[in-house]
């Protein structure tokens, strides 16, 4: 799908659904809640932009972000309780086919959750949603410089946490 061409919503869904789910889980760790936010945001986006092109990608993430924050606001107490339950039940954010990968995925999730929400959001958008810094800035509503430095800082911190965990495991 090039910038000028607009695909059907199914093309957009195939391309972004997993990423949007991971993004929504930064506020709504429970999978069902995050899926509700993705559904609300995606439908709202597609109704407003039925001929969306690649340049509208930040708007899609912004719409899902708003839906997730709305849901969080409405169900704050329940979400907090379920967050803890989801963490304890080992609910995964990434596909992991081997035990080692599952362990790494759990470590990264824990490390991610120790980051401030704003830094975690930038990491998800940059690493897994593969947005450019300019697109992230448009999604979050911050300047590119802020986003770039936030990302560098968050990545450094994440790397440090992961290294410490590796050290502790040895």
């Amino acid at each position, binding site marked *: 799908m090039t910038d000028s061409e*607009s695909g*059907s*919503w*199914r093309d957009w*869904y195939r391309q972004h*659904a*997993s*990423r949007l*789910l*991971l993004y929504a889980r930064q506020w709504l760790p429970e*999978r069902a809640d995050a*899926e509700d936010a*993705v*559904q609300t945001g*995606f*439908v709202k986006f*597609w*109704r407003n932009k*039925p*001929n969306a092109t690649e340049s509208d990608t930040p708007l899609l993430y912004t719409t899902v972000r708003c839906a997730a924050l709305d849901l969080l606001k409405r169900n704050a107490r329940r979400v907090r309780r379920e967050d803890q339950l989801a963490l304890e039940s080992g609910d*995964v*954010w*990434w*596909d*992991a086919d081997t035990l080692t*990968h599952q362990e*790494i*995925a759990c470590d*990264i999730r824990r490390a991610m959750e120790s980051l401030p929400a704003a830094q975690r959001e930038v*990491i998800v958008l940059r*690493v*897994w949603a593969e947005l450019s810094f300019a697109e992230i800035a448009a999604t979050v509503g911050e300047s590119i410089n802020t986003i770039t430095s936030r990302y*560098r800082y968050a*990545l*450094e911190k*994440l*790397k440090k946490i*992961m290294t410490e965990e590796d050290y502790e495991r040895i």
Partner: protein
Amino acid sequence: MNESEFENQLRGLQPVSPSNSLQGRIAAALPLEKSRRNFLSVWLMERMLWAAGGAIAVWLLMPRPVLSPGPSIDATTPQVARAPRVSEEPSAWSDEGVQLIDGGTPARILRRLVLERHHSPDGNAEMRVPREDVILLPVAFR
């Protein structure tokens, strides 16, 4: 491990896919897909064009009543009414002298009364119409 290696390691993890029901829920919320809408509009447009073409063809092939020719026009009948003859007869002049008109322009004002006589082409009727002409002559003061 440098920054880009660490980034690549993170990118190696694929986010889990949403449940199968999510796509179904979105499909239910979005009534008609764009491609389906386009297909419907093309289908409808095609049928409307065919119907319009058919209607034009029927109209062209439909027998029409032949109009009978009307009575022939007499060659002696005048095609266009002839204009009446007009003559005019000046009856009186009056000189109102130099006056300031249009907020200060000096001009000499002359009035002429004319009687127009309109004669019918056959000469059997006459109509008289009085007319007044106002003549302004610019004047320069020295």
